[in-house]
């Protein structure tokens, strides 16, 4: 009897979830999401995840102090990755917003941007996992900054989609 009650509750919760999705979709119809990007200091992020910098600290600090400093650096890097991930979502929304544009070139660029931003988003998740592991074992695992290049490439595409040249953007092959 208990098993039936549990199964019933799960089924009702699932149907309720579907109903909420329909309601949510119909209430958002025709409204463009607010586009908000958070500026990120990529130099600082790269510094936090630089293996050479880490090596320098490892050689010049006592082990206990190195672990403490490294953990603080990793915590800061995680905040950066979270912001990059949030910005990737914004870039996806920007790419998706031109799906109905009359110019096929803009539509194609938008699709390409969506692809890159999704890849960036997945890399952000992988980076967050890696950073969490590095936080647990700061002396064994090193954080990675490979996500920076992907972010720059996606961001550069978004800026050129808007028709504005991005003079200082560093293009990194993704």
């Amino acid at each position, binding site marked *: 009897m208990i098993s039936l009650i549990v199964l019933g509750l799960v*089924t009702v919760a699932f*149907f309720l*979830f579907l109903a909420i999705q329909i309601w949510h979709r119909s209430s958002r119809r025709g409204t463009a999401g607010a586009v908000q990007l958070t500026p990120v200091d990529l130099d600082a992020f790269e510094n936090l995840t630089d293996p050479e910098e880490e090596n320098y600290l490892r050689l010049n600090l006592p082990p206990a102090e190195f672990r403490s400093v490294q953990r603080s650096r990793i915590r800061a890097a995680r905040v950066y990755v979270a912001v990059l991930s949030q910005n990737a979502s914004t870039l996806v929304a920007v790419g998706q917003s031109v799906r109905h*544009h009359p110019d096929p070139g803009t539509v194609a660029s938008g699709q390409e941007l969506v*692809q890159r931003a999704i890849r960036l988003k997945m890399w952000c998740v992988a980076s967050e996992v890696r950073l969490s592991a590095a936080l647990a074992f700061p002396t064994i695992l090193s954080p990675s900054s490979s996500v920076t290049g992907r972010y*720059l490439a996606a961001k550069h595409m978004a*800026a050129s989609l808007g028709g504005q040249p991005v003079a200082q953007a560093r293009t990194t092959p993704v």
Partner: protein
Amino acid sequence: MTLQHYIFLYLWLGPHLLLLLVAALMYRRGQHKAFPIFFAYLFLQFLQSCVLFSAYLLKAPVIYREAHLIGSAIETAFQFGILQEIFAAPVANGAPLLRQVARMLNWTAAGLVFMATVFIAAFYYSKFGHPMVHTYLIVESIDAAQCALIFLAFLWYRFLGLRMSPLAFGIAVGMGLELGADPLVVILKNSVSPASYRSVDILQMAIYHVAVLVWVYYAWAREKAPSDSKAALPPLIERAPELGRIVRP
């Protein structure tokens, strides 16, 4: 013939005829290219209903049972394929990303089926000697795993910050209704007398009818741009300086 029998016949035939309308709408809009497995699934369900209804009219229970069993097995494989289509729709243009998503989904599906099997086996532990319990276990585990995958599909789009296309949304909701009805039927059939089983079947068929209507609606619905498409570019240009702020100083 009673009114209940007419309702039963309508709910059997009506939704399956509507499946052809869904297929026609998809074909007219070229959506069959984006969701080929779902498109084939519509015809599969239609064919299966034709075979089953013929067996019902000819009063051939053995053919009915076998056709139902084989059809259900093929349907299950198609349902996993459709779920993969929904997950992969946002990355359909990028082959490496598509492979990555497919691999991720296969592992997730396998994990979910395993977890559902363990969870449901715990329910049926006391009835393991019963001849039908293993069939129930497999069917319900797969249903539960597929419902969980539909739930994850919505989360996947939310995570990516993407809005599902109308058809992808309709397929997900319709399949959710179709698959979610099965556990409901199990609960009701365990709670009512065998004399009321026909009413439970009618309820399940009614839910399936709603699912097909959802497919019809979302196959017919056109995707609306968030704003006027001609006005889509100016906001982007407006945003460009903001994007530039992220660039190295």
